[in-house]
């Protein structure tokens, strides 16, 4: 623990908001462990760390969304209890969410004053609305026209509108959780200019990001969280990229001894120059029989877009392409499946399985045709096959009849995998295949994938979990800003080199 984070104590003005010894547990998970954190007026304090390090939980405590199990909160040096986000708003602590909460068809001014529109004689006072909006935008160094519809704005300007709204409602501390995750690089600088204007007007900003270059560019102070605890807090001048990477990764890297494949067979997927705008530009790769190939990128790097393009879910262009026996991109999921391509989407509950239907109906859904004779389904045959698949995939359920929603996350994911088994696929695309899955089930899923490729398939895993890619894949591509930044295999395919290449 480094003391520099508490160095402000000596100053005349206390920090705007400060937490001391904050603990937060969710069931058995100790998400935040005794964290001291503060932000002062006129300061941008960046919070960095891996997925699951506790960053979001910590700021939600500061924003009143969660109540700490232990620890104290101070605002302007006075001890407070924040019972809700509304309490935090009273003190001027506001959060800009990743999903912006704007009414797109309305004007900037109407959005900025949403919920407290100035009224004169019972009608909206548009002149005042416009003038006050313009004043707030000027404070942020923005010359946007208050009458423009928000729908026409680029993303970074929409964030500016959200910040302006926060200012109108009272803003002393602004919490920004990955605000640049979805921003194209050209707009990041624009947002940073607005953030600096806000800081110079005396607000404090808590800035969460995975992108270390950006953190080093914008932050005045940086705190590294790992496994729910503060590893280090440093002033911008003391920080280097190497130091941050070392502290973020910190722990001994886990040494999995998964069986890997070093010699690859014939290529089943060869993609040359895939563009899937706006996230992905000019991505080329191949995947061969017997191989598990990974695509690693930080959250929001667009690896999911590649998977969706290869499965015909979203539009993309490609210079040259071969997927199984298909020499173009599929036009729809059913087209992809006809050409022996399968897809396990990231959002299991929404896209991967149908929660309300039974295990049996979920597993058999893509292959219904195989069991239908003149349209009529052969239920005994279906039950037979489903039973053997439940066994093969180790789905733990009483029978195949209860709805999938009654299973645990790991077992739901096994169902999402098992349903492709009936269709002798050649190319299996998996997005975040073990997100929210416990360790035991993770290992089982990797083993199942390995068995699949040994039977002559190829698997491509798209993931933002470096450990997953390092553990499960034989070879991996690393995405950075929508392009392939590195290709790793063998001994260099490990968590630190993956993270290094993605940051």
């Amino acid at each position, binding site marked *: 623990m480094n003391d520099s984070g508490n160095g402000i104590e000596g100053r005349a003005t206390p920090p705007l908001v400060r937490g001391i010894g904050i603990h937060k547990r969710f069931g058995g998970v100790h998400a935040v462990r005794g964290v001291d954190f503060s932000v002062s007026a006129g300061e941008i304090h960046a919070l960095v760390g891996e997925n699951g390090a506790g960053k979001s939980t910590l700021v939600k405590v500061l924003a009143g969304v969660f109540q700490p199990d232990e620890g104290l909160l101070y605002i302007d040096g006075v001890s407070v209890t924040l019972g809700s986000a509304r309490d935090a708003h009273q003190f001027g602590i506001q959060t800009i969410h990743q999903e912006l909460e704007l009414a797109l068809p309305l004007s900037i001014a109407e959005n900025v004053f949403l919920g407290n529109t100035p009224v004169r004689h019972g009608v909206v006072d548009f002149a005042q609305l416009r003038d006050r909006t313009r004043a707030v935008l000027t404070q942020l160094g923005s010359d946007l026209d208050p009458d423009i519809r928000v729908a026409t704005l680029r993303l970074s300007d929409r964030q500016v509108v959200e910040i302006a709204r926060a200012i109108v409602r009272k803003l002393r501390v602004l919490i920004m959780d990955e605000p640049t995750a979805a921003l194209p690089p050209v707009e990041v600088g624009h947002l940073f200019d607005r953030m600096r204007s806000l800081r110079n007007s005396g607000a404090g900003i808590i800035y969460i990001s995975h992108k270390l270059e950006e953190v080093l560019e914008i932050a005045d102070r940086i705190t590294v969280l790992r496994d729910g605890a503060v590893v280090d807090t440093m002033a911008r001048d003391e920080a280097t990229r190497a130091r941050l990477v070392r502290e973020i990764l910190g722990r001994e890297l886990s040494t999995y001894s998964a069986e890997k494949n070093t010699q690859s067979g014939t290529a089943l997927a060869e993609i040359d120059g895939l563009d899937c705008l706006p996230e992905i530009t000019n991505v080329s790769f191949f995947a061969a029989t017997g191989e598990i190939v990974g695509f690693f990128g930080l959250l929001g790097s667009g690896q999911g877009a590649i998977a969706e393009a290869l499965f015909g879910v979203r539009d993309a262009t490609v210079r040259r392409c071969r997927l199984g026996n298909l020499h173009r991109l599929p036009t729809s999921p059913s087209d992809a499946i006809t050409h022996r391509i399968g897809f396990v989407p990231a959002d299991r509950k*929404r896209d991967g*399985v149908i929660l*309300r239907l039974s295990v049996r109906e979920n597993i058999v859904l893509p292959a219904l045709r195989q069991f239908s004779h003149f349209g009529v*389904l052969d239920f005994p045959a279906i039950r037979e096959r489903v039973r053997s698949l439940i066994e093969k995939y180790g789905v733990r359920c009483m029978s195949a009849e209860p709805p999938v929603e009654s299973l645990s996350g790991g077992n739901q994911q096994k169902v999402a995998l098992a349903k492709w088994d009936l269709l002798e696929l050649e190319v299996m695309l998996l997005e975040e295949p073990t997100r929210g899955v416990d360790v035991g089930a993770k290992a089982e899923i990797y083993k199942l994938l390995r068995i699949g490729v040994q039977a002559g398939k190829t698997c491509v895993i798209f993931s933002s979990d470096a450990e997953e890619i390092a553990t499960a894949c034989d070879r991996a591509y690393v995405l950075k800003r929508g392009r392939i930044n590195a290709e790793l295999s063998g001994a260099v395919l490990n968590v630190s080199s993956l993270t290094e290449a993605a940051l």
Partner: protein
Amino acid sequence: MSAVRTNSGTGAKPAGPLPSIFRFGSLPGIGLLALLIVMIVALSFGSPYFMTANNLINILLSVSVIGTMAAVSTLVMVSRNLDLSVASIAALAGVVAATVATKWGFPAWTTILIAVGVGAACGAVNGIFINVFRINSIITTIGTLSVFRGVAFVLTDGSSTLINDDTLIYLGSGRLGGVPVSVWLMLAIYCMVHFIAARTRVGRSFYAIGANPRASLLSGLRLGRYRLLVFVASGASAGIAGILLNGQSGTAMPGAAAGYELMVVTAVLLGGTSLHGGEGSVVGTLLGVLIIGVLNNGMTLLSVPSFYQTVANGLLLLIAVGVDQYRRGAGREEVA
């Protein structure tokens, strides 16, 4: 590893136990059946005429038209669509059938094929329109409800056509083993649709699509095709309903069956099919149809003025929708 119970697709929690007559969960239709029996028992005390064979047959006859349409409408709603144009299609198919039979002298079976064909074509219009313009089915079929009805008036210039073909009259008014042919036809359709819903690839796909369209798409189901199919089937069943209407009244009127679409929706919802798709049964719908029939017959026997009967039918629809909503969590504002 403990099993985690999560909510279904809509994300809302079930809002506690319901009065047991509205529970359809594990034993579909048991509650409804009880409701139906209670109504029948109560009415048999209320009116000496109610429990006569003649009256019971009349009830079945009175619901045969909406019943015919409601069977396929169950599949429409299971697949998360709604077809409000069925009654208009029935009227249009009816007047076309009457015209070809009476004015052009087509034989009965050709006439029936033409009516079913007109219905299927109207359904195809619905399905194609929804697929191409991606407009939700409620809005689309409100539009075609008016269009098809209007076309029926235009074709006939607003006038009725007498039916003089014996076979067509027989289908509407004849009896077989003491039971009206219309009722046999309706029951046959229920058997067929039930089989499709429970045992066929297409039927099970409707349930999957209704329960989660996106996951179904990602499993390779072609949503557009299934939507077209279900609307064509719905239109075809409305065409059959049009034939029954003609046969029962002996005339084809462009204004016939007005408002029946709401009775159909009421019956399907009463039967436990969800407006949110993915669940429902044809058997439940049949019970819903019978409840509507018994209610209206009972009110007539008890001399309830017809204006109040209209109110009662509206309340029944609201109750059916309310129960459906309540089952998936009431009092929760939808925040998109």
